[in-house]
């Protein structure tokens, strides 16, 4: 198993490297002067701009610039965000944890609901539940999360004269405020995430139910419930976790707009602000960090799968 894991780790590292290349290339494709974009909002002289170009190393060949950026990023996220003057390491440190917590809550809630629900709905007798699950899935995919968030805030205000806390606190600092703020975007993200999980869980469980060994289990006299959950449902676990891992990036992407609405100082909001401020080097680094995290999560999900489901051990 160590070998399989090592193989995947290597593949992930290569993927990350190429992803960094892609992100760098995409951003440098921008026509025009990067220094001008950065300085544009203050009247400045040509000399200042030239000095900035020197400082940013924009006069060096692209390969050198890429190498320098990659090196700076990998060795501790060195560098300063041009649009705010904050060191990138500090910026990422304070923002990343917040978004990861949010994504973690979302995925946990999602798995906790989607797995039992999906398994239950797979039973051919449960037509109504099946239809309901289909409906929830479809809505989760179709209705934009930010729209529901606005309605939610409005609803809470009009019905209960209550609004979520305005200052973000970490879970160890002030748990009740942390919870009261994060629960809402977590639920919304969980709903979107579950929309991807439910069909998979349901399909895998149905498939397992039609499997000969399940029939055998039934013939042995085990209760329907036991057959459903412990035998058939169990086979859906690994695919569910696999899909969850793959969709983790989607959870992070989904948090982009929600963080802005709820005032959560996460990396999603940081990225949006950097993009709107045209601070492209910062966008570059933040996207790289997010991709690294996403790949890491997918790797972790893979690892979990290796442990949970022996069948995957021998697939490449």
């Amino acid at each position, binding site marked *: 198993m160590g070998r399989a894991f090592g193989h995947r780790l290597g593949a992930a590292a290569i993927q990350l490297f190429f992803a960094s290349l892609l992100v760098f290339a995409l951003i440098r494709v921008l026509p025009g002067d990067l220094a001008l974009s950065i300085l544009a909002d203050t*009247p400045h002289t040509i000399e200042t701009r030239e000095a900035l170009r020197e400082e940013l190393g924009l006069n060096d060949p692209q390969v050198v610039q890429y190498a320098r950026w990659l090196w700076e990023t990998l060795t501790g996220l060195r560098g300063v965000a041009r649009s705010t003057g904050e060191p990138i390491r500090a910026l990422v440190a304070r923002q990343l944890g917040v978004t990861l917590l949010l994504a973690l809550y979302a995925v946990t809630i999602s798995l906790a609901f989607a797995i039992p629900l999906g398994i239950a709905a797979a039973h051919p007798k449960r037509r109504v539940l099946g239809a309901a699950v289909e409906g929830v899935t479809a809505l989760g995919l179709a209705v934009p999360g930010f729209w529901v968030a606005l309605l939610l805030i409005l609803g809470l*205000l009009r019905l209960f004269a209550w609004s979520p806390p305005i200052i973000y606190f970490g879970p160890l600092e002030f748990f009740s405020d942390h919870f009261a703020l994060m629960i809402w975007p977590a639920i919304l993200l969980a709903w979107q995430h579950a929309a991807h999980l439910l069909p998979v869980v349901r399909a895998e469980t149905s498939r397992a139910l039609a499997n000969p060994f399940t029939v055998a289990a039934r013939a042995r006299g085990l209760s329907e419930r036991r057959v459903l959950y412990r035998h058939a449902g169990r086979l859906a676990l690994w695919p569910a976790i696999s899909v969850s891992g793959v969709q983790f990036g989607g959870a992070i992407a989904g948090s982009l707009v929600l963080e802005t609405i709820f005032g959560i100082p996460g990396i999603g909001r940081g990225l949006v602000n950097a993009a709107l401020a045209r601070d492209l080097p910062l966008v570059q680094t933040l996207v790289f960090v997010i991709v690294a995290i996403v790949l890491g999560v997918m790797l972790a999900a893979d690892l979990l799968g290796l442990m949970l489901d022996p069948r995957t051990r021998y697939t490449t």
Partner: protein
Amino acid sequence: MFFGAEADDGSVRAPAYFARELGEALSVELLPFDRVRVTFAERNPHFLDILANPRFTISHPRHLMEERIRAGEVSLTPSDVGLVGLGPFALARYRRGSLIRLERNDEYWEREGRNRLPYLDRIDYVVMPDPFAMDAAFRSGRIDGGARGQAHYLSQERREIYEAELGASVRFLEMEGGNFRLAFNMLKDGPWQDLRVRRAIALWIDKRAAIPAALGGSGWTTPDLGPSNIPVPRFFVNWPRFDREPLTERRERALELMAEAGYADGFSMGHLVRGINTAPGEFLKDQLAGLNIDLYLQIVDEGEWNRARVSADYDSQQGRLTPSPIPEGTESVYGRYSSNPDAYAKHEDPQLDRLYDRLRLATSQDGRIQIWRELERYLFVEQTYIVPIAESINVVPYRSWVRGLAVPSEDAHTFNDHATVWLDRR
């Protein structure tokens, strides 16, 4: 004393924003008891009023800023060098992107005096990017005051909800918001070079409609010059003394003028629009469509906007929202382009130079008013380089128990120090 930025090689980098108004200083002397005497080459009675314009960033301290300014950073501000003052409050906590917490500063100099300022123990400035989330937080009682910022200022509709829900426990701070105008680029070729076309546009626009549509419902129509809340120049605020015929008559005349000028079928004109606030641009586009003018909106982000509005690249624009406390301070936005890069209308009309010189040399208040009226008439009617539309009012909500808050007298760019604020809760 020099109003501008000098480089180490002796060349002048940039004239200061109000260089012409600030005049030529011959000498500066330091007098005892912390006084300064500045001697000017010519009469300059409004020097202090110009300095009071909120757009000025005064460079201090010299030892931290001079070197960088000479190196070319001509718009360096004290906060860029990390200056922290000894005001009524001290920074207690700073969580970037979410909270700025200030606590009472026991070393504040007014603490010893009669009032023992400041009264507040603590102020939390909370960062809330979404205006609706701010509404929710205010109305549910989590915050005591609203935010400043284009999207956060209350529109008339939001204000009504606040009033309906909170009644007497909310009050509204109304601050000068700045003028909404259409300014032509006279240095670019186009149909607007014809005075009749510019007049037609000025007559056609329904200025009253701009207030609810483009300015959030709070404002008034005026040719220019605010603000309304500083005591002295009330008589400068010129309620529309021209183009006061009913809208239908004005529009008939506008159509006639366009036909006379040969543009009955209209034409196409570009218009620079700031991305963070497109409503005024959309309003203008629809208005001008009535004259068959296709005003195509060139929506740009902040970086490009700051570069573009001082360039001569765009056919027309709205300029930056900046009122001036006194008429003498308006040359930087109404004067000739070559000496005032920030000018709204890019023109090189020497008549404006002459008018501003006369204004500066006026020896009586009546004289000042009369010359100003003449200047306004020249600029807005006779030449119509600029079409003033309406002035906006920025509304910020506060709970009624927040007392002692001073309304900034210039405009919403001005800070208040909260030193005199107290809470009157039962």
